């Protein structure tokens, strides 16, 4: 297709992105703002595909649009139940008009300066890039997907720290109080969808984890799909969202960081620097770390969505039990109790 058509498509997408951002931030209704944010996230995933970044498109659609949207929706419920005193604590007092004008002028000035600097930097870019070194050493990294190679091998230390940052955030969430109250057991329609989607999500997550070595995918995308399954379970009535209790729960949360540390220290025992995998072990070590990290990321994302320690479930198979038992008892007027 001619480049002029692609340029028109790109301009349309770029304008639509900024317009959605404006509409979301300028709308008076919070619910509308969140829905526009989810739409923005999905359009952004399309732009990632256009910019040849399929790994990021997967992560954006799953985490950026889906999970963040679900998180914001459940936070909307917090705002709705707040009293005026509570609302005042988190909303600042209304500012004078010149504050807004000054902020607008400053941000527009910042945008212009950044834009000029960006276009200048693009034209005068240094031809030597880190990417060249990545592609030279990719064959020794144990994977053939360059993004996975950078994440899990060349910059593995950064990924370890990033998993630790996620753990710190979820520890903060756990420390701040009990989880949000769960939802009542859902009707048969949503339950049927959940029964089909959760196994499909688990299988697709496993596939993405495996395929991350040679195709777009990896631990983050797989963990996001498992977290989506957990969110579905919570919406269907399981207050824990599929998470276990006690030691298993804590073990899942630290799985990613622990796997990185174990592998990193084990190679140190073999005489190499921290996290410097030997070349013929690299593929298997990366797969092992990614598997643990998938579970850790999924548990962290679901705990962040639940906003606290998952509630203790009263009996096993709570979803199915509630759906089957309740209507019959009500229909017979409680005779069968």
């Amino acid at each position, binding site marked *: 297709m001619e480049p002029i058509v692609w340029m028109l498509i790109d301009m349309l997408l770029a304008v639509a992105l900024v317009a959605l951002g404006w509409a979301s931030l300028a709308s008076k209704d919070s619910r509308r703002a969140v829905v526009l944010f989810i739409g923005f996230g999905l359009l952004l995933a399309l732009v990632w595909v256009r910019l040849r970044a399929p790994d990021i498109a997967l992560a954006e659609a799953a985490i950026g649009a889906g999970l963040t949207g679900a998180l914001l929706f459940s936070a909307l419920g917090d705002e709705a139940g707040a009293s005026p005193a509570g609302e005042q604590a988190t909303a600042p007092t209304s500012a004078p008009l010149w504050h807004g004008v000054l902020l607008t002028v400053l941000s527009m000035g910042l945008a212009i300066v950044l834009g000029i600097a960006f276009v200048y930097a693009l034209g005068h870019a240094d031809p030597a890039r880190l990417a060249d070194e990545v592609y030279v050493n990719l064959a020794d990294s144990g994977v053939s997907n360059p993004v996975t190679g950078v994440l899990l091998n060349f910059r593995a230390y950064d990924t370890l720290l990033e998993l630790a940052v996620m753990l710190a955030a979820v520890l903060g969430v756990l420390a701040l109080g009990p989880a949000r109250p769960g939802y009542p057991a859902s*009707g048969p*329609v949503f339950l*049927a*969808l959940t029964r*089909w*989607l959760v196994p499909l999500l688990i299988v697709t997550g496993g596939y993405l984890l495996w395929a991350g070595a040679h195709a777009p995918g990896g631990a983050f995308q797989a963990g996001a799909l498992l977290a989506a399954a957990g969110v579905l379970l919570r919406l269907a009535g399981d207050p824990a969202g599929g998470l276990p209790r006690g030691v298993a729960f804590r073990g899942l949360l630290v799985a990613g960081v622990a796997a990185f540390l174990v592998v990193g220290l084990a190679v140190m025992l073999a005489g190499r620097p921290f996290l410097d995998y030997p070349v013929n072990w690299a593929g298997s070590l990366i797969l092992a770390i990614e598997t643990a990290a998938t579970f850790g990321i999924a548990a962290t994302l679901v705990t962040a969505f639940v906003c606290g320690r998952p509630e203790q479930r009263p009996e096993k198979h709570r979803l199915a039990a509630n759906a089957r038992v309740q209507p019959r008892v009500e229909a017979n007027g409680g005779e069968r109790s």
Partner: protein
Amino acid sequence: MTEYLAGALILAGLLFFIAGSIGLLRLPDMYSRLHALTKADNVGLGLLVAGLAIRAGDPLTAMKLVLVWVLVLGSSAVSAHLIAQRARHRERGAWNP
């Protein structure tokens, strides 16, 4: 020949999407808007997927596209049901046998 067929299917799918969006903007009631949106968008997506599957080349990619369509069908049907049920309960109160 297949190019023209695929192009015609994709164009027909786009027309259904446009019809669904016009319905979303112009219909008066929430229930009718849900109705138009779900049905028109699903048919539009089905035609789009059919056109793309013809262009795909190997049957595995075509089956993946059809799987995408089936998933969208299921989830949009359930979402529309949930939205309409909630609106109904808010209007008339929950069903109490």
